[in-house]
C-alpha cells in the first residue's frame, strides 16, 4: 500500500517536472452555472489524476492555464451540488471553452449552513484559528474596516474618539503592533497614516481574514499575536460601485470602486474614497476655566478641534489572464489626511489648534501567476512609500474646554512648537512561491523585506540635533512551510520563519546592530464529520520592535531605542460545529481556547509626562482565554448571532527595576486591557417590499464591553469616592435599515449609532461620539459576461 503511494507520488512528481518542459501548452476556461442558471462560485475544478485545477470565482468563471495537451476528465465539486464529470480532449495550443451546468444536491444543502459556504466561510475551514468576515454583507453600511473587525469574537477595537481617531486593536490579548495588517497578503506597515484600517471603507474589501495567534507562513511577517488580511479580491472584471453617506457631526463619506477589463485582458482598476467629519460631538468632561481655574467637574461641552478628513485614490493598470501572468498590475496609491488633535492622552489636556497632516504616495507592483510551471504559484509584490507626515503645533497658547485660549507668552506651541516634516522612506518587497507536489502536499517559500529610513526637518527648529541622527532599519522575514491536505478530512501545516533585523540608531560607529530570530509552528485541522471541525495550532513566534516603536512617530509615540525583541508561545484550540433542525433553523457554533506566554512582551505605557505612549518590555505576560460565536438563521430571512470573548492577561514579571524583592504586582492582571466583551446582532431581510425584487434589511447590533481598570487592579482604593481610574462598562446599540432596489443596483441605508446616547469610552476619559444618524446611498452595477 505504502509502496503504491510512493509510486503514485513519484509518478505525480515526474508528471509535474516533465510538464515544465513542455513547449506548447493549452488552457481550459469556462463558466459554471446551477440548474437554475445562477453562477456557482467556490467550486473546485480539477483534471482528474493531475495537479491541474482551479476554483470558480463569484461569477462562476474559472481558468486553468498551461495544461499539457491530452485527454482528461474534468471533475467539478461544489458544496451543495452533485459532483460533475466531463471528458475532454485538449489539443496543443488550444484554449478550450467549457460551459457546465451542475445540479443542486438537496440532501447536502440540508446539512450545511443554509446561507451557503461563501469564500469567507471557506477561509474559516483552514487549520489556522481564523475568522473571515464577508465584507460584501456590510457594503451598505458606513463601517470602516475597524468597525467591521470590532464585531469579531476575540477582537476589540479601541478608538480614542470619532472619525479618524487613533485606534488600537486587541486580538486575544495581544494588541498594537503584536497584530499585523495586510492587504491582499502585503504587509501594511509602511502605508503611513493616510491608509489605515480606521479610514479604509469596508467597500474596498471583499473579505477580511482574522488570524488569531498562529499566522500562516504565507503572510510573511513577524506578527506576535495574529494578523488581519484585507482581501480586496478581483470580484468583477467590469463594475462600478459608488456610495455616499452623510450624517451627524457633519460626517461625509464617499467610496468609488470600479474596474474595466477588455477582452484581451487589459484591466484598469480604481478605488477612491473619502472621509470627512467635524467630530464636534458633545463630551462630558472635567473642565476648568483657563483664566481662573474655576472647576466644573461634569461640564457637557462640544469638541472644537477634532476635524478629520482623508482622501485616497488607488489606481492599478495591467493585464489579467495572460500566459505569463494571471495578474500583472502597476499601481499607484495617492492619498492625504488632515487631523486636528483635540486632546492629549487625557481629556484634561485640551488643544485648540494643534494638528497633523500626512500623505501617501506609493507606487506598487503586483504580480501573480498560478501554475507558472504546473503546480508552482508565484506571487511578487513591491511598493515604496514616498509620502510625508507633518506635525503642526504653532499656536503659542493654552486652551480650555470652553474654547478659550490664553497666550503662553513664549514660543512654546501648545505642546511643543513644531512643524516637523519627515519621510519614513519605507519600501517593501515580497515574494511567495507555492509548489503543489501532488494532490495533498505542497511546500511554500516566502520572503518579505522592509526598509525604513526616516529623514526630516523642522523649519521652526532647524538646529535640533535629533533630526540629524540616523534612523534606519531593515528587516527580512524568510519563511518555509509544508502543507498536507486531505480535502474535507484533515489538513496540517508546519513552518519555520527566520527573521533578521538591522537597526541603525544614531550616528556613532557602532550604531548598527543585527538581530536574528528563528521561530516555528504547526497547525492542524480535522473534520470529525462534515459539520464538526477541530483545530489546533502552536507557534513559537518572534517579533522585532518596529521602526515606530524604536524611533517614535513624532506625535503620540515616543521612541525607545533599547527595546528588545519579543517572543511568544501561542497555543490555540478550536472547534466549529454546524447543524440544522427542522430544516429551517440553522446553527453554527465556533469556540476557541487560547494560551499565550510572551517573554519581553512589548506593551505601550505612558511616558514620563503622560503626554505620549512609549513601548517598553515586560519580562513576561501570560494570557489564557477563549472566545465563542454562535450564529443562527431561520429560513432565508432571519439571522442572529452572538460573540463572547474572555481573556485573562497576567503579569509574570517577578522583579521590578529598583526592587530586589518579589513585586507585589507579580501575577496581577495586566491593566488597561479589555478582558470581557461581546457582540450580538439580529438582522431581518424582507423580500419584495413595495415592489418585486426590492428588499428591506433591518439590522440591530449590540456591543458590550465590561469595565476594566486603567492602572494595576490591585493598587489603590476602589471605594466610590476614591476615583480609582476605570474604563466603564459600555453598551452601544446600533440599528440600520437598508432598502435595495433593482436587485441591489440601488441601495438606500439609514443607520443610527449609539441609539441610547450613552457615554462610551474605550480609553480612559476619551469619550467617543454620542447618538448619530447616517444616510447612505449606494449604486452598484456589474457586467458579468466576459
Amino acid at each position, binding site marked *: 500500500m505504502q509502496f503504491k503511494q510512493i509510486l503514485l507520488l513519484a509518478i505525480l512528481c515526474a508528471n509535474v517536472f516533465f510538464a515544465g518542459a513542455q513547449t506548447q501548452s493549452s488552457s481550459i476556461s469556462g463558466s459554471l452555472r446551477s440548474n437554475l442558471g445562477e453562477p456557482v462560485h467556490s467550486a473546485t475544478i480539477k483534471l482528474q489524476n493531475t495537479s491541474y485545477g482551479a476554483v470558480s470565482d463569484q461569477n462562476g468563471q474559472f481558468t486553468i492555464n498551461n495544461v499539457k495537451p491530452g485527454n482528461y476528465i474534468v471533475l467539478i465539486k461544489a458544496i451543495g451540488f452533485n459532483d460533475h464529470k466531463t471528458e475532454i480532449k485538449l489539443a496543443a495550443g488550444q484554449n478550450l471553452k467549457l460551459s457546465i451546468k451542475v445540479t443542486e444536491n438537496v440532501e447536502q444543502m440540508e446539512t450545511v449552513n443554509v446561507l451557503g459556504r461563501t469564500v469567507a466561510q471557506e477561509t474559516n475551514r483552514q487549520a489556522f484559528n481564523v475568522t473571515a468576515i464577508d465584507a460584501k454583507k456590510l457594503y451598505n453600511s458606513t463601517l470602516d474596516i475597524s468597525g467591521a473587525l470590532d464585531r469579531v469574537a476575540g477582537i476589540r477595537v479601541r478608538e480614542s474618539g470619532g472619525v479618524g481617531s487613533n485606534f488600537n486593536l486587541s486580538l486575544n490579548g495581544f494588541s498594537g503592533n503584536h497584530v499585523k495588517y495586510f492587504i491582499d497578503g502585503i504587509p501594511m506597515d509602511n502605508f503611513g497614516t493616510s491608509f489605515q484600517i480606521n479610514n479604509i471603507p469596508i467597500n474596498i474589501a471583499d473579505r477580511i481574514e482574522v488570524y488569531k495567534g498562529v499566522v500562516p507562513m504565507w503572510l510573511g511577517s513577524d506578527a506576535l499575536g495574529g494578523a488581519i488580511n484585507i482581501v480586496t479580491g478581483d470580484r468583477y472584471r467590469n463594475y462600478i460601485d459608488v456610495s455616499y453617506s452623510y450624517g451627524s457631526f457633519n460626517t461625509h463619506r464617499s467610496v468609488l470602486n470600479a474596474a474595466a477589463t477588455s477582452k484581451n485582458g487589459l484591466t484598469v482598476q480604481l478605488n477612491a474614497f473619502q472621509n470627512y467629519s467635524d467630530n464636534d460631538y458633545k463630551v462630558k468632561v472635567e473642565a476648568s476655566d483657563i483664566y481662573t481655574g474655576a472647576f466644573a467637574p461634569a461640564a457637557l461641552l462640544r469638541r472644537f478641534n477634532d476635524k478629520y478628513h482623508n482622501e485616497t485614490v488607488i489606481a492599478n493598470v495591467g493585464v489579467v489572464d495572460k500566459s505569463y501572468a494571471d495578474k500583472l498590475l502597476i499601481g499607484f496609491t495617492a492619498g492625504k489626511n488632515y487631523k486636528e488633535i483635540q486632546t492629549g492622552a487625557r481629556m484634561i489636556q485640551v488643544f485648540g489648534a494643534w494638528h497633523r497632516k500626512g500623505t501617501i504616495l506609493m507606487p506598487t507592483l503586483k504580480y501573480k501567476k498560478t501554475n507558472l510551471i504546473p503546480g508552482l504559484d508565484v506571487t511578487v509584490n513591491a511598493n515604496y512609500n514616498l509620502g510625508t507626515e507633518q506635525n503642526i503645533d504653532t499656536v503659542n497658547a493654552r486652551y480650555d474646554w470652553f474654547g478659550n485660549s490664553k497666550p503662553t507668552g513664549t514660543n512654546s506651541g501648545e505642546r*511643543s512648537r513644531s512643524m516637523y516634516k519627515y519621510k519614513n522612506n519605507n519600501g517593501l518587497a515580497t515574494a511567495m512561491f507555492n509548489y503543489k507536489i501532488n494532490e495533498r502536499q505542497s511546500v511554500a517559500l516566502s520572503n518579505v523585506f522592509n526598509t525604513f529610513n526616516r529623514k526630516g526637518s523642522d523649519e521652526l527648529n532647524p538646529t535640533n540635533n535629533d533630526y540629524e541622527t540616523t534612523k534606519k532599519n531593515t528587516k527580512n522575514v524568510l519563511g518555509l512551510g509544508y502543507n498536507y491536505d486531505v480535502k474535507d478530512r484533515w489538513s496540517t501545516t508546519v513552518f519555520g520563519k527566520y527573521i533578521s533585523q538591522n537597526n541603525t540608531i544614531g550616528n556613532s560607529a557602532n550604531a548598527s546592530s543585527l538581530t536574528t530570530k528563528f521561530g516555528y509552528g504547526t497547525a492542524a485541522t480535522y473534520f470529525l464529520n462534515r459539520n464538526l471541525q477541530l483545530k489546533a495550532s502552536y507557534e513559537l513566534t518572534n517579533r522585532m520592535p518596529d521602526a515606530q516603536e524604536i524611533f517614535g512617530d513624532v506625535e503620540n509615540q515616543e521612541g525607545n531605542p533599547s527595546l528588545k525583541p519579543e517572543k511568544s508561545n501561542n497555543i490555540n484550540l478550536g472547534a466549529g460545529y454546524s447543524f440544522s433542525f427542522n430544516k429551517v433553523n440553522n446553527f453554527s457554533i465556533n469556540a476557541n481556547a487560547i494560551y499565550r506566554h510572551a517573554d519581553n512582551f512589548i506593551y505601550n505605557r*505612558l511616558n514620563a*509626562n503622560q503626554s505620549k505612549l512609549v513601548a517598553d518590555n515586560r519580562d513576561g505576560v501570560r494570557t489564557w482565554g477563549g472566545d465563542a460565536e454562535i450564529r443562527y438563521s431561520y429560513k432565508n430571512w432571519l439571522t442572529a448571532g452572538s460573540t463572547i470573548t474572555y481573556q485573562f492577561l497576567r503579569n509574570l514579571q517577578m522583579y521590578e527595576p529598583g*526592587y530586589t524583592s518579589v*513585586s507585589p504586582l507579580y501575577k496581577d*492582571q495586566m491593566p488597561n486591557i479589555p478582558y*470581557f466583551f461581546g457582540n450580538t446582532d439580529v438582522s431581518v431581510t424582507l423580500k419584495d417590499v413595495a415592489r418585486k425584487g426590492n428588499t428591506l434589511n433591518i439590522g440591530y447590533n449590540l456591543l458590550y464591553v465590561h469595565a476594566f481598570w486603567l*492602572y494595576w487592579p490591585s493598587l*489603590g482604593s476602589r471605594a466610590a469616592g476614591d476615583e480609582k481610574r476605570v474604563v466603564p462598562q459600555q453598551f452601544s446599540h446600533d440599528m440600520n435599515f437598508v432598502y435595495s432596489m433593482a436587485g441591489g443596483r440601488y441601495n438606500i441605508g439609514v443607520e443610527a449609532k449609539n441609539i441610547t446616547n450613552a457615554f462610551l469610552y474605550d480609553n480612559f476619559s476619551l469619550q467617543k461620539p454620542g447618538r448619530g444618524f447616517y444616510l447612505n446611498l449606494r449604486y452598484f452595477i456589474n457586467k458579468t459576461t466576459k
Partner: protein
Amino acid sequence: MKTKFTKAFVALAFAAVFASCSKSNDSEAVANDPGNYILAVTPVASTGVADYLLTASDLEKGTVSILGNGIEQDGTYRYYVTANNKFFSMLYGQGNPGAVTTYNITNGKLTKLSNFASETVQAFAPVNDDILMLKIPRAITNPLANYYRVNTNSMLIAGEGTINTQTILNNGETAFFSWIKQVGTKVYAPFFSIKACCGAAFGTANPDNAWIAVYSYPDMKFEKVITDNRTSFIGRYFTDGLAVVENGDTYAFSSSVATSNGTILNSTKPSSITRLKAGVTEFDQTYLYNVETKSNGYVITNWTYVGGNNFVANVSKKADKGAYVVGNELAIINVVDQSFKLVTGLPIPAEITNITSNNYSPKDGKTAYYGLNLKNGTSYVYKIDASNATATQGVKVEGGALTAIQNIK
C-alpha cells in the same frame, strides 16, 4: 437532535469556564488607616500613576499599603504642598500642562475639592493666602518666567504675570529659580545662573556666587538681587534652600553643585550655610557655616527645618557630590551652634535606594518624619529625633516607594 444540542452546550460551557476565574489574592490585605497624615507612595511598575495617596493615623507604628488602598494621582510626577489645611497635589508635566488637584481631610479621609489644568511649574510655595507657582524658562530664547497665584480659599487663580529671568543679572545667562520662599512680606527667590543653550542647558560660567532675587507680593515686582561670593548658588534644582527660623533670620544652604555643562562640577566654593538677618536684605558676612569642614567631608543636599534652629539635613560624602545626587545619610545641624551630628539608627547608605525630600515636621524643635526606600523593596517612615540625633523605624509602607510625608488638620 438532542445530542447536537448537547454538543453545542458543551462548547458554550467550555467558553464560559474561562469567564469564571480570577486572580486568587494570596497576600493578606492591609486595611485602610484613616488619619491626618498623608503619605504619597509611587507604586512599583508604574503605568502612569504618579503616586497613591494614603492616610495614616500614626507614623510611628503599623503598616499601610497601597494594595487596595490609596487615591490614584495622575501623571508620572506629582509634587505636594500643604497650605491653609489643604493638600495640593501638583502634576508635573514638563513641557505639557500640569494640574493642581486639591484635597482636604474630613474624618481622616481625603476628599477632592478641585482639579484644574495649569502650567507645569518648577517652584511653588505658600505665600500669604496663596500658593505661588513659577514656570521657569530654560531656553535662552525665552526670557520670561510665568507666575501664578492660586488662592487657597477659593482654589481659583487670583493673578498671574511674568518675570524676566535674563535682566536680573544681565550676565548673558538666564536665572533659574531653585525655589521660592516668603520672607516677611517679600518673596525671596534664590536662583542659579544657567547658559540655557547649546548642549549646556544647566551649565554656567558663573559657579561661584549665590544670589537671591527679591520680589514684592502680590504684584511680584523685582526689587533687588542679594549677592554673596562666599558660596555657590543657594538650593538646587527643585529644592528649597531657604528656611526662616523663629527669630526671623533666614538661613540658606549651598550644595556647591554648579556645573560647566550640566554634569562637570565647576564651583570652587565649599558646601556651606549662610544667613540673612531678620529685616536685612543682605547676606550676614559675619556668619559662614562651612559644612565640609564642620562635618569632616560631607556636603548638604537638602534639609527640613524642625524648629529651635535645628535642621535635619540630607548629606552625602563630598566625593559623591553631583548636581542631582541626594544624600543617603541624615545629619542634625544646629545653625546657631554650628553643630553637625550624623543621625544614628538608620540603615547603612548602601541599603538605601533613596530618602524622601518632602518630609513632615511638627516644628517642635526636634521631630521630623522621613521616608526611607530600601533596596530590598521595603519602605518605612523613620522618626528623626534631633535632640539626640537618632532615628527610629516607624510605619511600614507596602506596594511602592514613599515620596512625600505631610499632615493637615
